[in-house]
C-alpha cells in the first residue's frame, strides 16, 4: 500500500537481503579457492598468471588513454538522468499540480530538447 509515513520496517528486509546476498556471493568466490587448495588443483605458475595475450608479453600498458567520446557520453547521460529525476515526482503529482504543472514540465522538456537538438546537430551523438 502507498503509505503516507515511510514504513522503515519495509526497508529492513532489503538490508538483511543485502547482507545475505553479499555473504552468498562471497562464499561463491572464496569457497572454490579453498576447495582448489584442498584438492590440489591450485597450481599457479608464471605463464598461467600472465595476462591473456597472443603468446607475446604485452607491448604496452593495457590501461591506455581512451577516446574522449566515452567521457562525452557519460556527461550526456548525467544530464538526461537528472532530467528523468525531475520527471519522477512530476509523474505522480500531476493530479495535484494540474495544467500549470504539466505546462511547466513541457517548457522544461523543451529546454532539454534544444540541448538534444544541439548535440545532434554538432554530431556529438555520432559514433564514428
Amino acid at each position, binding site marked *: *500500500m*502507498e503509505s503516507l509515513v515511510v514504513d522503515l*520496517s*519495509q526497508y*529492513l*528486509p*532489503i538490508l*538483511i*537481503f*543485502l547482507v*545475505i*546476498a*553479499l555473504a*552468498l*556471493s562471497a562464499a*561463491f*568466490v572464496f*569457497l*572454490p*579457492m579453498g576447495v*582448489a587448495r584442498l*584438492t590440489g*588443483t*591450485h597450481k*599457479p605458475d608464471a605463464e598461467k*598468471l*600472465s*595476462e*591473456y*595475450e597472443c603468446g607475446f608479453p*604485452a607491448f604496452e600498458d*593495457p*590501461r591506455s588513454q*581512451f577516446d574522449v567520446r*566515452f567521457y562525452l*557520453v*557519460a556527461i*550526456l*547521460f548525467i544530464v*538526461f*538522468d537528472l532530467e*528523468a529525476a525531475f*520527471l*519522477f515526482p512530476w*509523474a*505522480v503529482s*500531476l*493530479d495535484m499540480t*494540474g*495544467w500549470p504543472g*504539466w505546462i511547466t*514540465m513541457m517548457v522544461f*522538456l523543451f529546454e532539454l*530538447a534544444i540541448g*538534444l537538438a544541439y548535440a*545532434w546537430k554538432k554530431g556529438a*551523438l*555520432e*559514433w*564514428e
Partner: protein
Amino acid sequence: MTEFFQSWGLPYEWAWGIATVAGILLIALPLMLAVAMVIYAERRMWAAFALRRGPNVVGPFGLLQSFADGLKVMLQETIIPSAANKGIFLIAPIITFTVALMAWAVIPFNSGAVLADINVGLLYVLAISSLGVYGVVMAGWASNSKYPFFSAMRAAAQMISYEVSIGFILICVVLWAGTFNMNEIVKAQQGALFGVLNGFAFIPLLFPMWVLFLISSMAETARTPFDLTEAESELVAGYQTEYSSMAFALYWLGEYANVLLMCTLNAVLFWGGWLPPVDWAPLYLVPGVVWLLLKTFVFFFIFAWVKATVPRFRYDQLMRLGWKIFLPLSLIFVVLVSGWLMFTRYGVAA
C-alpha cells in the same frame, strides 16, 4: 508469513525476523535454481533453432547439465593474474551477483507477496540496475589486460546509453499507474483496456513503449544482438577473459539472473504481472505466481529466440539506436502520454 511463525508461540520480533529470512531464501534459492534450469532450457532452444541436439547426456534429457557444469567450475582453480589488482578483481564478481539478487526484493510475486513493499519500488529497481555497470567496469579495470578493459569501457557506455531511455519509458508507466509501488502498478493494470484485458501493453499509447523497453532490456543486459561487450571475435570473452572457476560462473549466474529480472519486469510493468491476461473471474483461480512465471518464460523465450536469430550490432549502430531513436521516441511519448492523461484524467477535474 509472520503470523505463521507467531502461531508457534514466538514473540513478534522473532517471528518477523524468521519470516523475513525465510522470504529472502525463498527468493534467492529458487532464483539460483531457475537460473541453472534456464541456462539448460536456453541451450536446448538454441540447439533446436540450429537443428542440433543440445545438451542431452547428463541426467534425463540432459536436465542436470547445468549442475554438472556448476560442479566442474566449483572444483577448478581460481586464477588471479599477477598483474591484476587482486582486491577489486575478487570484489567485482561479488558485486555483480549481489546486484543481480538485490533487485528481486521489490518484485511482487502475487497480490501483496513482496519482500519489501516500499513506496518507491520502481525507483529502487532503477537504482539497483544502474549499479550493474560497476561489476563489469571493475572486472575490466582490475584484470589489467587489454581485452577486458576495452570490453568494460564498451559495456559502461552501452549500459548508461540505454538506461536513459529506460528511465523515460518507466515514466510513461508511472504516469499511467500514478504510483511507484510495484504492487500498485500491477493492480493499476487490471482491466487496462475496456476493463477486459489486464496489462498496460494493451493500451495503444503504451504498446510502443513496451517494444522499446523489451529492446532496451536486451541492450541493458548485453544480450545478443547487443553483446558487444563479449564480442568473441574481437575481445576474446570480454571482461570475463581473465576469470576462472566460480568467479567466472558468478558472471554467468548474474547475467542470467538479470535476464530473468528483465523478463519479469516486462511482465510486471507491461503485461499485468500476477494478474491473468483477461479480467475474467475463473482465471483468478489460478495462483498469481503461476501467471507471472508463465509470462516471464514467454519473454525468456523471446530473448532466446532473438539471440539465436539476430546478428550482432556494430557499436556505432548500437549508439545511434540508443541516442538517436530510442531517446527522442521515449521523450515524445512522455509528452504524448502525459498530455493524453491530462485531457482524460487529471486535467478535467481541475
